[in-house]
């Protein structure tokens, strides 16, 4: 193929985008909406994965210190717990800290606590490497003298974990299914668009054009269509997510991942789907009309 033919294909592809008028608009907006749905789902999924692993890493139990233990002995206890296998971090919450937290929580109702003294015990918050180990480690902590009681969600934790696993796996399956269906929807739109131009393709073939020559401008057109169709939702998602992430105040473990990290994962998928199906799908679905 001669160089100028490349130039021609580019120009024709671009021209067609305009000459097909609202048909181009319909196809682009169809691709854009599909990718928008896909993008939102991807963002949710990415954040969900993140929250789940946050929660997993946050899983912890509390150990209450009996009131017989002197304040000066607390660091010894802390060291003892820290040295157990599988313990990641141990934090001391003194009874005074616990009380002030409770007062803050109660806010205007904090008066209710007045005159009660401080009924709360000193407390260690124990984080572990693997949340599945909590029961074992907790029972070891119970055996340390000076620890009055350990407290954790009992059967709640393993159940919670199994739920997380289910949610995570489902969301991955869901996203893959959604990508496949998005591809189907987009290629469907493209297929119908090509169908409206089957006569055009047949005529070109009858006038002596090779398959490659006919495909050239369609390829350019499909590529542009894919890029525009991915660009629109990517702008919407980027701006929208940035806005939400700035304005919706959450707290760990329910925090939204930072904008750039999420977009780095989501946008390439959108562009890949849009471009791939826009250009390649167009070329593929015109095959049948080239058989003239």
């Amino acid at each position, binding site marked *: *193929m*001669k160089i*100028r*033919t490349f130039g*021609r294909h580019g120009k024709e592809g671009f021209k*067609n985008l305009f*000459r*097909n008028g609202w048909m181009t608009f319909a196809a682009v907006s169809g691709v854009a909406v599909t990718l928008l749905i896909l993008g939102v789902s991807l963002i949710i999924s990415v954040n969900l994965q993140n929250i789940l692993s946050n929660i997993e890493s946050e899983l912890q139990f509390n150990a209450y210190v009996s009131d017989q233990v002197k304040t000066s002995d607390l660091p010894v206890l802390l060291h003892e717990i820290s040295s157990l296998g599988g313990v990641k971090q141990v934090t001391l919450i003194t009874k005074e800290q616990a009380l002030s937290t409770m007062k803050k929580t109660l806010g205007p109702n904090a008066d209710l606590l007045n005159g009660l003294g401080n009924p709360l015990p000193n407390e260690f918050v124990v984080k572990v490497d693997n949340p599945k180990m909590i029961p074992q480690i907790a029972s070891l902590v119970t055996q340390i003298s000076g620890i009055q009681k350990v407290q954790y969600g009992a059967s709640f934790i393993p159940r919670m974990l199994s739920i997380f696993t289910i949610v995570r796996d489902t969301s991955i399956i869901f996203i893959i299914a959604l990508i496949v269906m998005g591809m189907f929807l987009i290629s469907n739109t493209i297929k119908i668009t090509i169908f409206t131009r089957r006569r*055009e393709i047949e*005529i*070109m*073939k*009858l*006038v*002596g*054009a*090779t*398959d490659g*020559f006919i495909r050239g401008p369609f390829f350019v057109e499909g590529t542009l269509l894919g890029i525009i169709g991915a660009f629109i939702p990517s702008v919407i998602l980027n701006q929208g997510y940035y806005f939400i992430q700035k304005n919706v105040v959450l707290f760990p473990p329910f925090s939204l991942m930072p904008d750039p990290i999420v977009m780095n994962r989501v946008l390439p998928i959108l562009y890949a789907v849009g471009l791939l199906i826009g250009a390649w799908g167009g070329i593929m679905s015109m095959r049948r009309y080239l*058989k*003239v």
Partner: protein
Amino acid sequence: MIEMQDVWKEYNNGVTALQGVSVRIAQGEFVYVVGPSGAGKSTFIKLMYREERPTKGHIFVGGFNIERLRDRQIPFMRRHVGVIFQDFKLLQKMTVEENVAFAMEVIEASKRLTRKRVKEMLELVGLIDKAKMFPNELSGGEQQRVAVARALVNKPSVIVADEPTGNLDPDNSWQILKLFERVNDRGTTIVMATHNRELVNATRKRVIAIEQGQIARDEERGDYGYED
């Protein structure tokens, strides 16, 4: 140059459009194909550039053995055959000049040559002032003349025309015919299906009459026939 050997064509719906047609057209000949409506003239012509494929028989056009042709070679065969279709087959999304230029872009002719030839052709068919219009902005006869221009622009070695004057007034018809004769003088083979008795009788060239899918008559310097 063009040869058919015992060619049969049965369409998918069971209609047999051609039944054992054998014919030989030498390079540089000018042939009229006449016959009643539905006789098989268009089918006969469509076989020459492989819009339709024969059910049986052999067809040779230029150096090409039409039925043996590989898919990849079809476009190159078609570039030797300029076709004027009965229903014009213009590209609706392209202007008149783009439609004509398309046939030259396909063979990757230089831009300068393309521009020059397109202008020449549009002048010849009298449409130079409608160069920028789209086909649906043209009258029936104007569209037909665009189709003529496109078929000739590449100087193909064979021109195959299916009723190229069906939508033209006698004046324009004569001009198209003159054009064909000039091209024919330069050695181009011309096969033209027509209902135009006036033209056929006035020019006296080889006439092939097709009736019910068979060649009923094949005369050098023949007339249209079918006089009542």
